[in-house]
């Protein structure tokens, strides 16, 4: 007859998918939108002080996944905004945003120099840039490359937290 016993089983360290595999090619954004977002990410959250930036943290790859799962209005903020940024670049410089020099690209980001308001701007480019500023920074500073390199994480509580499992 089996008796009740405490089972001592060694807990094994597990990796997450991002440790072991590359993200699939962009599934939500078009190639042009993705290239624009990648370039923008590098400008919004660059590598600094030995810590990775958006490019190294693969923030654009992560946002392709996150935004692709998001409600329609959030998707539209990104797609319309990325298209508007690309169009503004072609109009002003005759080439796509991803091909611009850093200084050229920065001239198209003037909405980020406006004071923040609770209601997001009506202009699709400004609205997108405001969203991307926060999302790219979080996607970078809450990534494993950033935190394991010594970054504290963008969350106010830091890089770790008490996770609530699903309740019975």
């Amino acid at each position, binding site marked *: 007859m089996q008796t009740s016993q405490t089972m001592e089983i060694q807990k094994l360290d597990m990796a997450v998918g991002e440790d072991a595999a590359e993200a699939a090619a962009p599934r939500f954004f078009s190639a042009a939108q993705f290239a624009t977002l990648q370039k923008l990410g590098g400008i919004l959250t660059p590598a600094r002080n030995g810590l990775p930036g958006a490019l190294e943290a693969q923030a654009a790859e992560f946002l392709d996944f996150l935004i692709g799962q998001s409600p329609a209005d959030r998707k539209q903020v990104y797609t319309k905004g990325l298209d508007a940024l690309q169009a503004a670049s072609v109009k002003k410089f005759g080439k796509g945003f991803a091909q611009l020099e850093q200084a050229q690209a920065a001239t198209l980001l003037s909405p980020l*120099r406006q004071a923040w308001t609770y209601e997001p701007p009506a202009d699709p480019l400004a609205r997108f840039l405001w969203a991307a500023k926060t999302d790219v920074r979080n996607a970078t500073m809450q*990534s494993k490359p950033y935190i394991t390199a010594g970054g504290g994480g963008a969350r106010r509580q830091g890089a770790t937290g*008490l*996770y*609530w499992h699903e309740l019975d």
Partner: protein
Amino acid sequence: MASKTYDVLIIGSGASGGMAAHTLTKKGAECLLLEAGPQVDFNRARSLKNVYDLPYRGMGKPGRLSHVFQADEFNANQWVDEAQVPYTHDPANPYNWVRVRMLGGKSNFWARMSFRLSDYEFKAKDVDGFGENWPVSYAEMAPYYDVVEGIFRVMGRKEGLKQLPDGNFVEDRSPDGPLITRFGQASKKLGMTVTKIRRALGQGPLASSLNLLLPGAMETGKLTIVPNAVAREISYDKSGGRVTGVHFVDKRTGREMHAKARVVVVAASCLESTRLLLNSNIANSSGVLGRYLHDQFYIVRGVAALIPEAKGGKMGRGAAGSGYVPRAQNLNGKDKKYIRGYCFDLNTGNTPDTRFFPYFGEELEQKIDEWRGAGFSSTIMGEVLPRYENHVRIDKTVKDAWGIPVLNFQCKYTDNEFEMAKDAVETISGVCQELGWEVLNRNTKMFPPGYSIHELGTCRMGDNPKTSVLNKWNQSHDIKNLFVVDGSSFVTGGGQNPTMTILALSMRASEYMAEQMNKKEL
């Protein structure tokens, strides 16, 4: 198995239900308490994780808990699943209904802000003519606040303010930080008082029904708790004009059950209580059940500023401080464009939200480094007028996971709240500017109603059965053995967090119940 008839059946185990169980069992009543959620083992339910180990890097699963701004990827499972227990509203007028279903309810997670109401709320109509007075006065409530504050170990500093009465405090003798002191000196000229935040210390890690109220009730041997019991409908004997118990469904199995009691206490949280009464089609001869929904509007970090003297870490940890400013408006009638007033908290020594900095890239990061720990922020908590038009009703077209019709919300803020918000932001940012602090953000736009998790009213008390649902003892005007003891009974809410008042009301009503039961009047 034949079920027994309990003296009292309590629906809900949060602050109000826990206090009812605590008080009634000590008076000798045999109580059955039903809780819609599970009993949670906090040690097993939570574990420490790195943010990058979460599937969405801590940014949350898109579309989940869209009304719960407090939710993040770490705590998402602690809130009620909106797909399981939905509600409806006009898309143009959203309501953020934030719910918890587990033993102890929201008292497991509250911010512990512990304030008394005053006669500026209990007798608000006498001050400005709007709405109704409560059927109780501050003097009648004060002894109950005293006891509740003792149980919850409320820490605070006495100020002698009529609009924020002092309590039975664990005295807070800590000095204000230098920046809070400066703010206090500047704001005094405007008639404002900066005091310490009054906060429940509780015992150990919690200040909850779970550790402060229910254990004592269990020790009496008079309390039976059934978790995962979702109340469907209160049973009512038309011939006798009495409630007889409640039909509930076992959350895990779907099994339908009925529990019997001589007295029913509804304490399911403000809007779940009203939903249950509306679905039971009882206690509404007045027609005001579901009406006068109100709360406090919140503008989180409505004013954010940079403090030059703390820039570059010059003050170190000495910059840190917090405080609370009680209502200072319309205390002598009407001297503003609006009636009633607002409270706000103060926080210095923080790092401002990156959104508020009009920079990006390297320049943004440099600014954040410069101003780290040199920020000021204030969250505004304004009184919302209880209006007949703001209400909930049953939406029969939508049902929850157990087939129970859901609530439809018809609620929006009006000019009184908007004017109050503008005045609050102007006043606070004016003080900052006088101090030479650089105002970075001035936001007068509040979150949608419900955000504060202080939903109140919809089952209000009053002396007149034609305009109120409950009498001064939280007892139904229509049905003598039915009591509703949570925030739904509020007549007005002030700007103060309501938990202390909910606890005091529940204790007071429960003592009355016990007395009436002893006299065989119930």
